[in-house]
């Protein structure tokens, strides 16, 4: 039988960023840390653990760690690795137990998860074959429009007549955006078109598992107000976003680690 711990750590090693959360026995966040994953997932994991130790001023050597995300196997000190599907479900269920559908948009994938009343996934769909519908899509488009990724969402909300971006491929959509710039369409209209195209892609993915309200959005893209606006339109429902949506997977991993990984 697994022993309960007084502290636990969850680490989400994503394609773009690595997130770590330190929890106490009552599931309160003691401290958390986020950094770019970079070229070495092992180094980013170690850096996260060092930062948790510094900010908590505690010896975390024996604290159980559960890792998640695409680089989960790179967290060598983890007692267990658990998929991001389960960790995101557990994380969002802790923050809002009413949530029945979770849409998580990461740097290189997007996932839609239907969640049971116990916080465990019932069904899921992943898009990890194509960068359209992921954070990378928005990064590419922000670069073409010469705005930061943080500005892209608010820019899109100023649109008067959102452009039509018909391609579902990031590379071809980039050419399309350049074409729209060439015909004189405004950056805000193009930014809105970009978000609409991405929202449409996510809506299609959502239909594959069936959207059941309430719906939450997590991952770094959940901080983008433009995307949330167009996604809510596309799936015709309100969206609930945690205060720090990018930490949801790491939070779920830390909760599982508190119970010894069971």
């Amino acid at each position, binding site marked *: 039988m697994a022993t309960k711990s007084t502290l636990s750590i969850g680490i989400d090693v994503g394609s773009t960023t690595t997130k770590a959360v330190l929890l106490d026995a009552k599931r309160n966040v003691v401290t958390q840390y986020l950094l770019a994953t970079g070229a070495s997932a092992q180094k980013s994991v170690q850096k996260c653990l060092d930062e948790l130790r510094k900010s908590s001023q505690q010896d975390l050597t024996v604290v159980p760690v559960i890792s998640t995300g*695409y680089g989960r196997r790179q967290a060598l000190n983890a007692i267990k690795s*658990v*998929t*991001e*599907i*389960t960790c995101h479900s557990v994380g969002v269920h802790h923050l809002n137990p009413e949530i029945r559908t979770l849409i998580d948009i990461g740097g290189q994938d997007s996932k839609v998860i239907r969640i049971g009343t116990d916080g*465990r*996934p*019932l*069904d*899921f769909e*992943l898009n*990890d*074959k194509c960068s359209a519908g992921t954070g990378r899509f928005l990064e590419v488009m922000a670069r073409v429009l010469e705005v930061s990724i943080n500005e892209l969402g608010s820019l899109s909300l100023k649109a008067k007549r959102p452009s039509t971006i018909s391609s579902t491929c990031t590379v071809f959509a980039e050419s399309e955006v350049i074409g729209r710039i060439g015909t004189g369409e405004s950056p805000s209209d193009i930014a809105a078109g970009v978000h609409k195209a991405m929202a449409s892609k996510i809506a299609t993915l959502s239909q*594959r598992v069936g959207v059941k309200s309430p719906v939450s959005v997590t991952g770094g893209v959940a901080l983008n107000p433009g995307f949330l606006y167009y996604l809510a339109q596309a799936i015709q429902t309100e969206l609930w976003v945690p205060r720090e949506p990018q930490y949801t997977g790491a939070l779920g991993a830390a909760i599982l680690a508190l119970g010894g990984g069971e």
Partner: protein
Amino acid sequence: MAPDATTTPKEKAYRKLNTSKLLRDTMTLHILSTKQASQQGRLAWVTSGFPVEIPVAFDVTAAYPEQYGAIVGSEKCGPLLCGFAEELGFSQELCSYARSSIGSVKNPQQSPLTGLPTPQALLACNNICGTVLSWYEAVSEMTGAPVYLVDMPPLEGDQPSHHLSYVKSKLEGLIEFLSQTFNQDYDEEKLIQVAELSNEAVSLWTRALEACRHKPTPLNCADRFLSMAPIVALRGTQQAISFYQAFLAEVQDRVKNNVGAIVDEKVRLLWDNIPPWFTIYNFFNTLAKKGVSFPADSYTHAWSANIPRGEILESIAKVYSNVYLNKGLTAKIDKMCSLIKDYDLEGFVLFSVRSCKRYSLGQMVTKEEITRRTGVPGVIIEGDMVDSQQYNEAQVETRVEALLEMIV
């Protein structure tokens, strides 16, 4: 040393079958016989769902390009051979069995076993997919061997009499084609004897499959996919019967002694579709280490129908028209639901094979429907059977792990 039921620290998570050597010997002899038949002008290339009893009754040896595709995949040279076909202008979206076959005909010296021996006839039946006709026509252009298509239009529900008559007429056409191509008269008595041999092998094979209802399962997925080789290539011959007698005896022995195909069976799943041949051991054995077995799959159960008694051509027409790949989605869903129930399975993995459209079509609906009917969860993983460029191990792993987390 023969495997036993006890686990030692050095023991692998899966148990190799003792009949593996007999399987290898049987298939090696078959390969040699195809070379000899080609030299004697009596070799036909045949699709996997073809009514092979008819050419066998004409003393024609059958070689299977789809089985050759499995060898190409296992030898991890799919991208190379598919590339040869793509150089000829064939699309990357085309069936990778077709691409690797065409590629091996183009460059035999760079192909495993220097390709299949040159055929004197190409026998296609579209009950398993429609691509086979164009594929065999392409090979025909390259080798000069004539093509005969046994056309079996798709069926929904029971087979109407006009459908049966049509298929029977195609079999009569096949007899005429074989008589002319191989200069031999049709012998109905011989065909009946071949059909009986075929039925005997199919019965033995089916009994081995059904033994997997036992907990722990005596056969895992990779065991069945490898051991199905004679039921595909040697149906209607004594060699197939000899192999499956020994195979069934080992399976029954495992059941009797409670020896599982994997050492510590914890979770039992269903597999759907052709496997990724280039990573078949890695995939199933990695899961075996986690206690995951696959006691049933939709694919190897496709060779488990007996030719019924009655007028022989009509009986053959019936059994081959009704393979579930020719019967629409509902038949396949029904089959998988019954496997889940009969084999007491806790989940299912649908392998979406990028280049096998016929088998992979409708898997999203299938997944929903199976879960609705059986209550067990499933997952779709993506890849290909031969072309490893279409397979991402990390993505597959995440999906299967997530399924296991939903079950355990």
